[in-house]
């Protein structure tokens, strides 16, 4: 695997009304790697993802991104300077129902990023949209239809096509498979993994479902109350957790084997 870095984050903090949502988070992300961010709701994982993309502005810390034109300090750029970089960083959202505009056709949804960045003429855009549809395994007839005509899994495929049409380097998946049925979830996970191989994508994978993270990620950050309490390779963290909080999270996963009883650790006795 290529060991070139795509993103470095150091000392990142974000406060809402003085309350810390993300505190002193540092990590690095290599190209073609999948980094998982896990934690309970309120642990700051989504805020962290948004700070990195500058969807919200971090209060402290450094976010450096290895763009096509070399390293840039994302946290210092003005909104206008960010625009061309946005093409290289894309997001796949959780809810396939609210993240697609119901009044736009699939063609309009998928080609919108190209229009925003002023790329290509009409014919080229259409060719690219059709290419994306093939890539996410949707039929070409989908083009003229509206989001309501699709199932949850198909909508998520549309969202993926929209995120990838600009050929980004970094893709942030914020709970992208959480809202899906287990069988559809399996299809989308497979699709994300295939696309990663094919296009050399780097994923930042925010999720609360630890078994999904275990399957798809190379490394993982465990967040608790805005801080990273543990990070390491998936095998290290899942097989030999060092922190009590990680153990608590792992002990709460119900095993699909009826002979492995659920024995969640007690939060209070761990002092968390």
């Amino acid at each position, binding site marked *: 695997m290529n060991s070139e870095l795509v993103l470095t984050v150091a000392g990142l903090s974000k406060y809402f009304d003085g309350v810390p949502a993300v505190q002193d988070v540092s990590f690095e992300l290599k190209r073609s790697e999948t980094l998982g961010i896990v934690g309970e709701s309120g642990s700051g994982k989504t805020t962290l993802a948004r700070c990195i993309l500058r969807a919200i502005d971090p209060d402290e810390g450094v976010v450096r991104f290895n763009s096509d034109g070399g390293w840039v300090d994302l946290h210092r750029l003005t909104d206008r300077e960010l625009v061309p970089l946005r093409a290289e960083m894309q997001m796949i959202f959780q809810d396939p129902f609210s993240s697609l505009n119901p009044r736009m056709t699939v063609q309009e949804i998928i080609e919108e990023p190209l229009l925003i960045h002023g790329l290509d003429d009409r014919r080229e855009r259409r060719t690219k949209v059709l290419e994306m549809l093939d890539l996410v395994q949707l039929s070409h007839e989908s083009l003229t239809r509206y989001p309501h005509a699709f199932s949850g899994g198909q909508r998520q495929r549309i969202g993926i096509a929209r995120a990838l049409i600009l050929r980004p380097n970094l893709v942030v998946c914020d709970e992208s498979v959480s809202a899906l049925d*287990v069988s559809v*979830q399996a299809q989308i996970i*497979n699709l994300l993994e295939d696309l990663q191989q094919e296009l050399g994508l780097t994923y930042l994978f925010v999720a*609360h479902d630890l078994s999904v993270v275990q399957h798809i990620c190379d490394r993982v950050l465990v967040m608790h109350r805005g801080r990273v309490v543990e990070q390491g390779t998936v095998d290290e963290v899942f097989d030999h957790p060092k922190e009590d909080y990680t153990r608590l999270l792992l002990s709460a996963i*119900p*095993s*699909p084997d009826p002979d*492995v009883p*659920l024995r969640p650790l007690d939060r209070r006795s761990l002092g968390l």
Partner: protein
Amino acid sequence: MAETTDNVLEIRDLAVDFKTDTGLTNALVNVGFDVPRGKVTAVVGESGSGKSVTANCIMRLIQPPGRITGGSIAFQPEQGEAFDIVSLGKKDPRLLDLRGGKISMVFQEPMTALSPVYTVGNQVAEAILCHRDVSKEVAWKEAAHMLERVGIGDIERRMTMYPFEFSGGMRQRVVVAMALVCNPEVLICDEPTTALDVTIQAEILTLIRDLQRELGNSVLFITHDLGVVAQLADQVVVMYQGRVLEIGTVRQVLKTPVHPYTRGLLAAIPGLAKKGQPLSTIASVVGDTDITTPWPLVTLADGRQVSLPPDQIPEGAS
């Protein structure tokens, strides 16, 4: 099964239609299974499989454009005569006694199951006042007792608080307290932990499991999470597109599934798959076989029931 059959609910040939712009949708087709007394029965399936519709039928909560078009749900209370829930009139006193009294329900989304304008104590006490002839003071005390049992501390203060002041897990505890306060014979849980964090889910699951063992009531647990099923259920009913495909004990269904669809469902769980390999999907396990064709349930030698075409039924079927 060899044991004497003491079923609190016996569902037979249940059919539900929804009238839509594009014609009739058969939400349930010939659904039939038993809910044994004092046990946990899990109904699993994907969205659209009809598991929630089945639960709503038991409570008679199917509203137009939906309609129960056939079948029966025999309810055998511990005391008193058995009756068919489907054939009860809308204003039958037995139906009102059933809802929230003999059978109660825990819903998925605690914020919508609770009213935002009443205090928590008020809402739990209301359930008692609806079903029993007791004074407000007694109801309040019993509500406080129930809330303590589901693990809510500092009870005097919490009773006078509103749902928005509670966290998601605490709210779900309140909903469980509301459902259990009238000591129902059947507790229906419709995806009660889907909206919760995995740690909170573990707390609520252990709570429901411990209370079930303590109170000995029957639980019908609806979920799409096979991990939850494995931890909680005695018996499992697998549904797909409004039909029952497989019924068996939790070990039969999860460890040695017979129906290809059940196998597909199990194979799609990321936790069970080998890392670095693509996950199996239903399609890759089931293939293109038509699993919607309604084959009648056949009882196998080991007691489980499956819906399979005659040529695929394993040896030893009766």
